[in-house]
């Protein structure tokens, strides 16, 4: 018995030291990274990867200098390598005036200064820089056993190109969207804001993935406190992998347990430019077309970029419809439940009679009826979302028309309930931001339960709980319900529920205490 216990203990309880650290493969390279830069060592580290190519050649200078060119096949533009490295060093060098003076001691500097014609050359001295450059798609040239090397920025891989974003379609406005390539994205942004104060600061995250990202903002427009906070939070991220914006979003948001999105995202350069001009900060991650924008406030999720391309009157009407849609999507089923279960006095008599007739023979109470229909709606939405477009549409039509109609004919639900849930579904599509739409879908259920048990009292309690929760949220120090609470009247009247005409939008939205004029001067 004792031996059994001992065996179980050995199998289940690991020694303390072993339990504490689960070493990631990246750590095994740490020692190599600290060693002096050497082409041979790089070949040793990366040589086993079939996609990493090495090209050895010699420069015939004053002495014979062995060279090693390293790059990742598929990530570099081979034509550029041929044209700007191999041809100048192997073919054109013979007739170069400096060729007779080239030695191992001066080859790096002389090559950089007067032999290689490319724009993006950089001298490096650390092993870590060399490895990262190669794995990021640059080419690195090592010269003999010197501890210096040259990095050539020749990144070139197949990419999707600039296309119209699917999630943010627009009627009247630019059609271009971000792609998965970081530099393409920064160039799209730079084309929108041609001003030296636009800052694009590069970072790397993910111990294994070494993902490139940039933090972008407009100097003297963005609050220095917010910018510093962005860098501080990004600096605290310690992860092996960083495969997309979602990783960062969860790591830097203020309240990870809230259903409400606290970081905005966009796929459009014009939207990002607009947000930066409002004093916000963008985070562009390589490998994803989604750009994060901080800080985010609640009303921002209900406003779309088209508001700024349409005339003010049209924009105001659109916003009103969206806000109404969000309200209906969140509360329509619960109000229906509360009214039919507890507060029939609110309903005009004719309508009450009609509802009463419709409910005859329906076996489920209004709460269960609504919950069932909403769950069916959620299933249909989820099923249609990931299917190919034509099938997804079919699912929607089959679900909405056939199942709904069959359920009414079978006497399982009332026609009014089908209308109500259909209205809820349509209204939820009026919410322009996917993340906020999800939050509304989540909180719809507790509202229905509260309405089913406590009528309008329950709905009121739910609404106040959500309000207090929203009031307690902050996004990078900015109150989430700003400019409603804390009240900033100008921002509220200019660009929140309504959008004032452009000639009246003289000041930037007041994110923090300082309110700057849009012209950049105190007005």
């Amino acid at each position, binding site marked *: 018995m004792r031996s059994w216990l001992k065996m179980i203990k050995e199998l289940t309880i690991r020694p303390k030291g072993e339990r504490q650290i689960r070493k990631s493969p990246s750590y095994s390279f740490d020692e190599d990274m600290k060693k002096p830069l050497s082409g041979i060592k790089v070949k040793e580290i990366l040589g086993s990867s079939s996609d990493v190519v090495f090209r050895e050649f010699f420069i015939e200078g004053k002495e014979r200098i062995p060279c090693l060119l390293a790059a990742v096949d598929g990530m570099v533009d081979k034509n550029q390598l041929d044209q700007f490295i191999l041809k100048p060093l192997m073919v054109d060098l013979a007739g170069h005036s400096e060729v007779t003076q080239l030695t191992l001691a001066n080859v790096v500097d002389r090559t950089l200064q007067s032999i290689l014609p490319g724009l993006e050359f950089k001298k490096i001295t650390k092993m870590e820089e060399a490895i990262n450059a190669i794995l990021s798609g640059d080419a690195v040239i090592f010269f003999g056993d010197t501890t210096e090397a040259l990095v050539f920025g020749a990144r070139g891989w197949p990419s999707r190109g600039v296309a119209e974003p699917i999630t943010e379609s627009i009627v009247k406005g630019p059609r271009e969207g971000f792609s998965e390539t970081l530099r393409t994205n920064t160039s799209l942004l730079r084309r929108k804001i041609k001003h030296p104060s636009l800052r694009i600061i590069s970072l790397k995250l993910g111990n294994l993935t070494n993902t490139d990202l940039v933090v972008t903002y407009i100097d003297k427009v963005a609050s220095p406190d917010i910018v510093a906070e962005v860098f501080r939070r990004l600096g605290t991220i310690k992860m092996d992998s960083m495969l997309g914006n979602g990783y960062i979003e969860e790591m830097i948001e203020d309240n990870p347990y809230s259903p409400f999105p606290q970081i905005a995202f966009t796929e459009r350069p014009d939207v990002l430019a607009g947000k930066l001009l409002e004093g916000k900060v963008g985070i562009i991650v390589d490998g994803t077309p989604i750009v994060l924008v901080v800080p985010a406030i609640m009303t921002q999720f209900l406003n779309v970029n088209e508001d700024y391309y349409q005339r003010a009157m049209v924009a105001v009407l659109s916003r009103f419809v969206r806000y109404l849609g969000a309200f209906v999507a969140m509360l329509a089923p619960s109000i229906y439940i509360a009214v039919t279960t*507890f*507060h029939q*006095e*609110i309903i*005009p008599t004719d309508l009450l009679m009609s509802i009463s007739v419709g409910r005859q023979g329906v076996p489920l109470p209004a709460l269960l009826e609504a919950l069932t229909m909403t769950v069916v709606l959620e299933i249909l939405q989820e099923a249609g979302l990931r299917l190919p477009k034509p099938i997804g549409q079919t699912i929607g039509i089959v679900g909405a028309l056939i199942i709904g109609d069959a359920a009414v004919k079978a006497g399982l639900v009332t026609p009014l309930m089908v209308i109500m849930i259909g209205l809820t579904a349509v209204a939820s599509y009026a919410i322009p931001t996917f993340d906020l739409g999800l939050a509304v879908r989540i909180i719809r259920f507790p509202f229905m339960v509260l309405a089913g048990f*406590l*009528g*309008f*009292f*329950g*709905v*009121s*309690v739910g*609404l*106040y*709980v959500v*309000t*207090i*929760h929203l*009031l*307690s949220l902050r996004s990078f120090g900015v*109150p989430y*319900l700003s400019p*409603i*609470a*804390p*009240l900033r009247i100008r921002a509220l009247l200019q660009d929140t529920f309504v959008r004032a005409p452009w000639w009246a939008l003289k000041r930037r939205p007041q994110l923090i205490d300082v309110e700057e004029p849009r012209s950049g001067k105190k007005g």
Partner: protein
Amino acid sequence: MERISTHQFMTLGAAVLMGTTFLPVASIATGAGGRDGWMSVLPGFAMVIPYSLMVLSLLAQYPNKNLLQISEALLGKWIGKCIGVIYISITGYFGGLLLSQCGDIYERSIMPLTPLWLFYLGGLLLVFYTVSSGVEVFARFSEIVFPMIVIALVLNIGLSIPRMEQGELLPILSEGLKPIFSGAFKIMPFAMEYILFLAGILTFLPNSKKELAQLKNGVWRAVFLVGILDMLVVLIQILVFGPEEVNRLVYGLLVLGKIVEISRTVSGVESLFMGVWLGASVVKISAFFFTVTWGLETVFGFKGVKWNLAVCAVFLGIAFGFVRGHSLFVEITLVDDYLILPFASVWIPILWGVSRWKKGAGVQ
């Protein structure tokens, strides 16, 4: 340290001062002042202005301290502690009664079959959440709720205009000015409830010279805004029901909400108004919850979630003690008239007087 802006102070002050006063104010004003009772509302509320100015002048002299701390500094440790205990007892008891009132109005008006404890629990949940979120969130909450209360009151008043009978007001001042004075005296305790809250929130207020001037302006605005709104509430009820009926109906506004009708189509919308009244109730109860927690922290050094839960338990206990109806209304009036009014109207002037005397005499 949490801080609220001068604008938030104004809105929060107005929301706390208003609280649920619009429910019983008509009954109380007409009970004391008859058909001229509506004229006593604004003067009754205005009585709070000198007290508020005294409190704010104490803030200028003792920045970042609440009145309990100032009491200890001016009157000595033990007298200060005794005042603190009285303060905690009064505000704690009154907060519990307000929670009871919250359940009572729901049960009376729209949901007579729902168990009372569910209303208490729902209300207390909101209060606890608000208090746990801090003063800043409370101030922002009032920025949202107060405009809703104003809109709901204006709707109630506006939609009742077709039922008005002007003759109910006449003859005006038939019994002289005496009813106005007696009505104002009965309204004063409402305003003194606000002073108790102001005594505690001082530590969260800005205290530069410019901001102090804005705070004083905020008090004036809050008092006049709430005074005028409550006056209109009383006036419309007198015009619709007549003074005797208003006095008999304890919560006349709820009845007014019941009879609201738009074009003979939309009616029975009191359940919608009740949602707003719940918000008002939460603001008022939270204000008293805060005062209790500030008191406990200052006097005994008790703070944290477990003490907040203890205060919740006390509130619930008091709410269950005075279940409903007229006895609850009488109890609230008694606490207002015989505890809050005398305590605040004696405490504040004494503190202010002693501080002025010490300042004049050069005593630190």
